[in-house]
Structure formats: C-alpha cells, structure tokens
C-alpha cells in the first residue's frame, strides 16, 4: 500500500538512466538498498533531506524525481 496516494515518483527511471543499481544509489545517499526500493515503489515517502540527497546524487532536481499525481 502506498505511503502517500498523491505522490508519484520517477526515481527508478533516473536511477537506471544514471546506470546505478539500487545498492549503488543507496550507498551514495547513506541509506539501505531497501529504502531505495520502497521509495521507488511508492511505499515510503522520503524526507526533504533525503529527497535532496537523491536529486544531488542523480544530478537532477527534486521535482524531476517526485511529483503530485493529477
């Protein structure tokens, strides 16, 4: 069950485009691989700080990774 019904995420797309595995990205932002997996599946909503770290690690904006569902 999604943690927040209004949140859509493109994290997986950006991660794969960067050629990173979940474990690689997790190591870059100091979280567990499972955390990345649950964010990608929309099960877990990251804090602002983690969202910013993810965006920085992937070289994009937070808004590219996360958006509100219409």
């Amino acid at each position, binding site marked *: 069950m999604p943690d927040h019904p209004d949140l859509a995420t493109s994290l997986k797309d950006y991660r794969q485009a960067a050629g990173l595995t979940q*474990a690689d990205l*997790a*190591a870059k932002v*100091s*979280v*567990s*691989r*499972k*955390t990345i*997996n*649950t964010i990608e*599946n929309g*099960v*877990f909503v*990251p*804090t602002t700080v*983690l969202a910013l770290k993810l965006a920085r690690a992937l070289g994009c904006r937070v808004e590219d990774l996360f958006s509100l569902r219409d």
Partner: protein
Amino acid sequence: MTNTEKLSVRRRWLLILLGLSFAIWTLADLEVAEAYAADGHGWMALLGAAAGLVWVAGLLFFTFSFARSKLDPASKAALEDELVEQNRKTSFSIAYSVLILLTVTFFLLSRMTELNAKDTVTVLLTAGIVTPMFTFAWLEGKGA
C-alpha cells in the same frame, strides 16, 4: 546480499528470538501456567527458565553485536536510516494500540470477574515489550 542487508536480517531474527524468549519466560510465570506445571508438567517451568536464559544471553549478544563502535559508517547509516526510523515509530505506535486494547479488555473483564493482578500485569508487560519487537521485525522484513 550487502553487508547492511545481512546485518538487518540478523537484527530481525534476533528480535524475533528475543521476543519469543521473553514471552515464554514471562508467560510461564502466570499462575495458570504455574498450576499446569505443578500438575505433573514440570517441563513448563524448565521451559520458562530456559527461555529466560535465552532472553538474557540474546539481549547481551544483540547489544554488543550492534554496538555503534563496531559498525562501519556506511552500515551504521544504512541500519538507522529514515525507513528504519519510521518502522520503529510505527512499531511503537502499534504496541501502544495493543496495550490500550488489552487494558480496556482487562478493565471490562474485571467488571465481570475476579482478575489476578500479577497475571494481568504480566500479560501487559509482555505485550508492551514483545509487540514492538515483533512489529519492527515484520516491518523490516517487508519489501526486503
């Protein structure tokens, strides 16, 4: 499986073991269990004592296994990240709900019958300690 995932799995299983051993140890001390044990089922008392030993040994092992100084920085960060923090909060929240439910149940039962105070407190204590352990272990296992 990464080192962090191995540590997370180990933590989950240790929590389940600790929860089970504590529950067996304390519930074996209930008057109904003592009466059963006294009625030719002495193995119950032994089981309770063994579970108590497992609890103490397991707790020491758990504490020293995950002592912060032993973990490398990456493992430390990943084992205590935001998802773990949320799971911990959720497990305590569920435990609180279970305790309230049990307390209300015992309250209502006390209006209908005589309740053994020691046993009532033992059940509440066990639920309060064991529920967050099992819930956290379950949450950590989801999506793993």
